[in-house]
């Protein structure tokens, strides 16, 4: 698979034009994710994040790296409001996540596409049904579902497997189904927690390429990963956590600290 990787900035307006979104104001691009002074201590007393400050401008592609237990998944859980910060503020796409009333959490989740290591597909629904599910359960009118699903299935390259069950798919295809589902709400932000953790290296590359392509369409991507080879090869923005602190934030980083 070959694909040219260009910086997101030039292409962003394409997606904006496609979606009819207003152009961002000149100057500093809007931050899709902004954490300020965030600390997270779990009820058992374990502190998973300490004094984290992080801003991710629209269109960024960010790798979140760090040893096991560094707090990557915790940071992601704060963004999707699976957990609340003990201290500090979290903004996602303009929403004050920590202060969001409970009934507005679905609104936040619809603005984010979420992808996990274990795919989280429904085993008894086909690829198409799994993707359509995300629209059905959020009250999308029936006639709008089919075209939207077809569009994202084409985008992830699963048009031909649309009527297969997850059990009849390879791991890579299952993850692409999950990505299609994450995209079907037209989110501005995709958050992926070790999306390639269950895949062998070649397939992992395919998934990364797909996420890069989605990023080129203007969607911001934040991806937690242990995949050193991919991170180092791509030289994108790398945010490294260690024991809950951001120890490194480089625009063209590698997996390990460059000597």
């Amino acid at each position, binding site marked *: 698979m070959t694909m040219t990787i260009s910086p997101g900035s030039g292409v962003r307006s394409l997606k904006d034009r496609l979606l009819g979104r207003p152009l961002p104001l000149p100057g500093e691009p809007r931050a899709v994710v902004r954490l300020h002074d965030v600390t997270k201590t779990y009820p058992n007393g374990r502190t998973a994040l300490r004094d984290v400050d992080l801003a991710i401008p629209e269109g960024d592609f960010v790798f979140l790296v760090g040893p096991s237990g560094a707090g990557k998944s915790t940071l992601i859980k704060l963004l*999707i409001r699976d957990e609340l910060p003990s201290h500090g503020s979290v903004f996602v796409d303009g929403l004050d996540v920590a202060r969001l009333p409970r*009934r507005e959490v*679905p*609104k*936040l*989740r*619809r*603005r984010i596409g*979420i992808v996990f290591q274990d795919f*989280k597909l*429904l085993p*008894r629904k086909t690829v198409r049904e799994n993707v359509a*599910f*995300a629209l*059905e*359960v*959020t*009250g999308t*009118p*029936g006639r709008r579902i089919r075209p939207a699903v077809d569009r994202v299935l084409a985008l992830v390259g699963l048009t031909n497997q649309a009527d297969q069950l997850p059990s009849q798919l390879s791991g890579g295809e299952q993850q692409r189904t999950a990505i299609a*589902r994450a995209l079907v*709400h037209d989110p501005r932000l995709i958050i992926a927690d070790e999306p390639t953790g269950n895949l062998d290296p070649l397939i992992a590359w395919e998934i990364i390429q797909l996420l890069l392509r989605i990023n080129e369409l203007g969607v911001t991507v934040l991806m937690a990963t242990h995949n050193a080879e991919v991170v180092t090869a791509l030289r994108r923005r790398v945010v490294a956590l260690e024991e809950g602190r951001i120890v490194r934030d480089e625009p063209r980083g590698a997996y390990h600290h460059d000597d």
Partner: protein
Amino acid sequence: MLRFLAFSLRRAWQGFWRNALMSLAATATMTLMLVLLAGFWILQAGLLAGLEFVEQKVEVVADLRDDAPAAEIDALRRRLLAEPGVRSVDYVSKEEALARFRERLAAQGEEDLTRYLDENPLRASLEVKLADPRVAGEITDRLRNERIVESVIDIENLVDRVLTVTNILRMAGAVVLVVVGLIVLFIVVNTIRLAVLARADEIEIMRLVGASDAFIRWPFVFEGAFVGLLGSLVTLGLLGLAAEPIGRFLFDFFRILPLQLGSLARDVAIVVLAAGLGLGTVGSWISVRTYLLR
């Protein structure tokens, strides 16, 4: 709103059939519990009818003076009928009393000695049947003060004892029914909880993609209601099938009881349907709530 309803009902229907085994297990449990509940309900109704039957046996009998004028007897009868707690007042003439006495002797196979009597020694009487045995004492006192009344047999002690026993039995019946109801509630709710637990993944995914609580909750609630409805219909079907043979077996028993079979059947149908729908709905509401509160 309409789309939401259509969505919820469709998802409920799908949910039921996609997890057919679990749904059928839940329905079977529901049916079993409803049969149990209906069985105890019927027993309770039988018990109450039996107790009422016993209590209605209580009657106050006033023997009348031989010289009591018919008009006064009739007036007394009417006054008694107007008393609260009195069900009926029957006048038994001297001749009827004698005839009854003879019948009783004949039934016992004894020689009829009354033909040796040259005059009827029995008294005419008023038999006051009570709807509420608690008024027995009051009626007895009232009758004793009537001029035309010769004597009233004292039954107050008997009434007290009967009432003590019947009240204890009533209470016991109610307690048993409540306990059975609680057991049924517990088992059904837990069965539904298990059925929902089997779909925790589905709920998690719904939350992840931004489904609102209502979209998550109502399909499950409808599905629970559906399980409850199905369970009650199966239960009513089973009871309908069983009614004929059981009814034949118990017919004589029921006939002497003040039990309206028609209204009992209606009550049982209402109880089974309400319990089925209620348990199904409340059970799934509670079960889903656990996941939504996180």
